């Protein structure tokens, strides 16, 4: 790699990493507030409401299950609810509570849970 390319990569990283970390933290906060009741405080799908639910919430730590969904599908499921992707009505639409930016941050955090957190 030549010097210019290295410098450019460094600058990009320096500028984008704090923003990514902030986005991840925002996603984690939103996940705690809005998702853990069903998806569990660790994201494993074992939330406090589960005994009353006819369909098991998705385990967001399951890399195999999560890899089968694109970011666009996750975004749609959160924004428009489970029915929008032919899944359970128990997953409600959150578009009345969360902005698109909020939902993108949630998707980012779900990807972290499944595939980057080592869990």
């Amino acid at each position: 790699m030549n010097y210019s390319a290295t410098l450019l990569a460094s600058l990009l990283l320096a500028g984008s990493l704090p923003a990514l970390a902030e986005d991840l933290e925002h996603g984690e906060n939103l996940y705690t507030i809005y998702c853990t009741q069903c998806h569990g405080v660790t994201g494993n799908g074992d939330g406090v409401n589960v005994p009353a639910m006819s369909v098991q919430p998705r385990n967001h730590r399951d890399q195999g299950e999560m890899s089968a969904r694109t970011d666009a599908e996750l975004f749609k499921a959160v924004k428009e609810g489970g029915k929008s992707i032919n899944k359970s009505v128990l997953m409600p639409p959150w578009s009345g509570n969360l902005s698109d930016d909020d939902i993108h941050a949630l998707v980012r955090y779900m990807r972290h849970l499944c595939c980057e957190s080592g869990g």
Partner: protein
Amino acid sequence: MRLKLLAGLLLTGGLLQPSPGALADTGQWLQSECGSCHALEKPDYPALGHVERVTRKGPPLHFAGNKFQAGWLESWLQDPVRIRPAGVFPPGAVVPSDEGDVIDPATLEEHPALDAKQAKRAADYLMVLRPHDELIAATIYEPGSIARRMGELNFTKFNGCDACHSDGPGYGGLSGPELYTAWQRLQPGFIASFIADPAAWDPHTLMPKAGLNDSAVGRLANYLKLIGEEAP
């Protein structure tokens, strides 16, 4: 003649509300006693962000007069019983276990009980707080009846309310307030309006907006009426 006019106004309810001075005194008293847990004025939600929901210790009361049944409120303040099985912020009351997440009872705080005079004073003040009359006025809901089976289906299979709420002791989810006494606690117009657009009342509510039409909202409200009228 003036006396008759005054008596007439009193009888029609025109002057039955506390005087402005008494209200201000009660407002200061409630702020000091309740303000650390309950919002008595609308918080600046956009400035606070969603994290406000994490730090919230009690439900906001700045629209209490649009929300509660006055008699129930006065009575409950004297003998408070838990409405939210997992508290006001469920993630803060839940811990993982081998059987899945469970509520840690040690995290749940009891609401203090007021004596009869304090409860009346507090309820009278809270019922004057009506910043959302326009939401109630815009709500199309006339309480009616619904067959139990149809009500149950709407509450469970069609809308999934039972994931978070119970419609009877021991039935349904734990993160939301129990709803088998909702009809006793809440004004019908509030129930319908809140189901239709919860964030219009509380931008940081954990209740999603399901996108239901007036008829679907009415069926759910009528089911709460059915089970609420049977609840002890």
